[in-house]
C-alpha cells in the first residue's frame, strides 16, 4: 500500500475541504466553472515550475510512495492533483470566511 502515501496526504486535504464546505453549507453560484478557470492559470504556472525543478534535481519523489503515473515524462500525477486540491482548499477557506463575515455583519 506504500504507493498510496502521497495520495493519503492529498486525501486528507480534500477531506478537510469537503468537510468545511458541507459544515458551512457553501453554495457559490458557478463555483466549479470559476474555480476551473482560476485553477487552469495556477496549473499553467506551477506545473512549469515543478517540471523545471524536477528536471534540475531540486527535488524528487520516493518512487515507492507514489503511484508511478507521470505527466510530461516526469511530473508525478500526485503533483498535478496537489495543484488542484490545494487551490480548492484555499478558495473554500476564503469563501467560508467571507460568508462568516457577512453573517456577523448582518446580525449586528
Amino acid at each position, binding site marked *: 500500500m506504500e504507493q498510496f*502515501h*502521497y495520495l493519503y*496526504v492529498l486525501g*486528507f*486535504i480534500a477531506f*478537510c475541504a469537503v468537510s468545511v464546505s458541507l459544515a458551512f453549507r457553501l453554495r457559490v453560484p*458557478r463555483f466549479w*466553472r*470559476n*474555480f476551473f*478557470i*482560476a*485553477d487552469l*492559470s*495556477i496549473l499553467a*504556472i*506551477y506545473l512549469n*515550475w515543478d517540471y523545471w*525543478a524536477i528536471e*534540475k*534535481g*531540486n*527535488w*524528487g*519523489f*520516493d518512487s515507492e*510512495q*507514489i503511484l508511478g503515473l507521470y505527466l510530461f515524462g516526469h511530473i508525478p500525477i500526485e503533483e498535478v492533483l496537489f495543484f488542484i486540491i*490545494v*487551490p480548492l*482548499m*484555499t*478558495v473554500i*477557506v*476564503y469563501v467560508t*470566511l*467571507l460568508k462568516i*463575515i457577512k453573517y456577523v455583519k448582518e446580525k449586528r
Partner: protein
Amino acid sequence: MTYSDIALYAVIFAVVTDLYFIKVQMITRGIFWLSYGLIFPFQLLTNWWLTSSNIVIYSPETITGPRLAGAPIEDLLFGFSMILLTLSFWEFYRARDKKLIKK
C-alpha cells in the same frame, strides 16, 4: 538558479501579478491575510508530512538550510505565492464572469 532564488521570484511574481497585471489587489485585503493565517498551520502540517516520510526529497544544494516543521523555509514562500495567486485569480475570473452574466 536554486530553489531559494525561484521561491523568492515566485513571491515577487505573485505580488506583481496581483497588484499590477490583474489588479485584484488581494494582498491589500484583510480577508486575504485572515485566510492565509488559517491555511498556514495546515501548510506546515502537510509540509511536515510530505518531508518527514520522505515522499518529497529536497536536494541539499538547492535550499538555504533552515527548515521549519521538516520542510525547507523556501516552501513557505512557495506556499504564500500560490495562496495569493489562487485567490487573486479566483476574484479576477469571478468578477469577469459576473459581468458576462449581466450582459
